[in-house]
């Protein structure tokens, strides 16, 4: 039995000025699925991800979240959608003027209007989950990259989202810190979180991904399990790309 569709992407296209970045995307993300999105630089991976929570608005097409078309929502109505979609960025984007704890408490207090103690409880639970309880009072600048990214994941989780979006979460990290972030993500996937992850960590994709999408030139060129895609790419474009990243 196929699970229920959480995100439906129908005929989505996106232009910046005259350049077509997304050309005609039609995909579905189902409840509990982990999707890995791969593809060369400039393919439009980040753009697609950012369309999902309306950081960008598609030029045409519709994106349904829980059956609701989010492309027609006003700026004000977006809040409720974004609460339900956590996002983690390549460059962490923690708020440097707040402690780790304050980073985690900000959104629950401001958006969900929780009281301070409730927010603090949830924050500490999440810090324990990412293994950083002792850094609660630290400022982001004093943390290593891996630690910052784990805090960023916790911060997104603090809103208790239905879906998590990751945009190359490990590519700004020193190699020995990649593992700690991936393991947090792996646990998240194991707990049944619906996830869309832009990544080139093939190990992670093979272990966790239900589906890998290969994107190039504004289209999803190929779709399949990690094994299908990495070991037996069908299109020339995919063969070439996968050859390059395995070769290194």
């Amino acid at each position, binding site marked *: 039995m196929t699970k229920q569709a959480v995100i439906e992407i129908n005929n989505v296209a996106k232009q910046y000025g005259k350049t077509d970045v997304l050309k005609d995307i039609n995909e579905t993300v189902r409840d509990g699925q982990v999707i890995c999105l791969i593809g060369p630089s400039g393919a439009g991976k980040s753009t697609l991800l950012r369309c999902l929570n309306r950081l960008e608005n598609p030029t045409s097409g519709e994106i349904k979240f829980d059956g609701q078309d989010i492309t027609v929502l006003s700026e004000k109505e977006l*809040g409720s959608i974004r609460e339900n979609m956590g996002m983690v960025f390549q460059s962490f984007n923690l708020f440097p003027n707040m402690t780790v704890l304050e980073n985690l408490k900000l959104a629950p207090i401001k958006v969900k209007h929780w009281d301070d103690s409730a927010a603090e409880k949830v924050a500490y639970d999440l810090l324990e989950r990412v293994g950083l309880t002792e850094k609660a009072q630290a400022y982001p600048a004093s943390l290593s990259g891996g630690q910052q990214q784990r805090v960023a994941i916790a911060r*997104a989780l603090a809103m208790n989202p239905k879906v998590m979006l990751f945009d190359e979460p490990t590519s700004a990290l020193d190699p020995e810190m990649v593992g700690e972030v991936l393991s947090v993500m792996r646990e998240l996937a194991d707990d049944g979180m619906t996830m869309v992850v832009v990544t080139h960590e093939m190990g992670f994709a093979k272990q966790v991904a239900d589906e890998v999408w290969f994107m190039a030139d504004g289209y999803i060129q190929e779709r399949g399990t990690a094994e299908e895609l990495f070991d037996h790419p069908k299109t020339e474009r995919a063969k070439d790309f996968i050859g390059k990243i395995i070769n290194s």
Partner: protein
Amino acid sequence: MKTIKQLFAILAVLVVSFTIIQGQPAIAHAATDDSLAAIQKRGKLVMATSPDYPPYEFQTNQKGKSKVVGMDVSIAKQIAKDLHVKLVIKSMTFDSLLVALETGKADMVMAGMNPTPERRQSVDFSDIYYVGGQDFLVNKDEASKYPNQKSLANQKVGAQTGTLQYNLAKKHIPGVTVKGMDKGADLILALKTHKLVAVGMEKPAAEAYVKNDPSLVAISSTYNLDENSSGSAIAFRKGSDSLVTAVNKSLKDIKQDNLIHKVYLKDAGKYMKVNTANTSMGHYWTYFAKGVQYTLIIAAVSGVIGVVLGVLLALMRLSKVKVFKWLSVSYIEFVRGTPLMVQVLFVYFGVGVIVNLPALISGIIAVSLNSGAYIAEIIRGGIDSVSKGQDEAAQSLGLSRSDIMKSVILPQALKNIWPALGNEFISLIKESSIVSIIGVTDLIYQLNIVRADTYRGVMPVFIAMVLYFIMTFGLTRILNHFEGRMQHD
């Protein structure tokens, strides 16, 4: 000065005459002249003077007590001594002197007064005791080059604009270029810096300068002036013949002994020296203090208003409403494209058309409007400097626009712009100097007053410079301190 005094005196006489004609009870125009006897009976001679004309008569501060001294006072003392009476000095404005004489409040008037025909109609004069005449000041090291008026032909000579000296020089020195300036001190400075070869001046004033400044010498002019316009005499009530005779006797003795040049002028010079000693830079600290105070007030008030205005303009510029954006951009560009100096003039004269604003307020408004534009750009820069990722991270958490601004963007922007904002406040201290041109008593304005007062050109400028530096340096330190406290990383 003398010119104005003369005019004044004429008017005073006119007014007095008028009053008398109108039938006011005139005092003691005794047919029988008891003027001398009356004074000797009372045992005191009342002299009226206007002590603002060194070395004739001027005030001096000694041990904190103000005292009238000068050549005229010395002469009066000698006269009183000769008459065996005590001298009493009454100070008043020049134009009240003859009135005081007519109304019996004084027995005689000594104030470097010229016995002009008009005055002679209403008062009696003693013999002329001193002929001031016209001098030129030249630099001592050039004294041999310019020994007399003739040698000034075809040279640059200075004089106060609109004075007798200016016109005399222009008329009587062949080929001369007369350079007019407003302030005596500036003339002296121009002379000492060899921008001029000589400065025309009334003799006593010239001598006062020479006494105060060993690098200057005075040379006499050869203008032909009549004594009644340039000599000084003592004024008495009409018909005080016996007193006049007695005084003339004293004056004759004084002249015979050449006391005026040998003693009185020298004494006056000494007092002036004391005055100058007292008026060293330290003595003027209150002037500088007031200047610093005003400079800081202007900078502080303008800074606060500028920040408010700047935030407003920055938000307008970032707003999505086209009209706001356009207004803000135009304002900022225009203000940043024109000098503060012309803005100060514009506010002072322009806004003044609508409401009546004192110079200080005009100055503060202009500086505020100016700094508002710069601060707006700093704030906008600060907001831009917060990485787009911060905004996106906050958005993706579902935060509202205003929460993002308040909690995420502005705190970081403030930290980023702190140094630039600090520089702007420091600029404010420096730029507030420009309001001096509309007469606000800031540090520059005060410096100019001290410069005029002390005949010293560079020292007050230097002191103001150091004071400015202390202010800006101090502020830098304070700002750095706060910047340090804002660091989280």
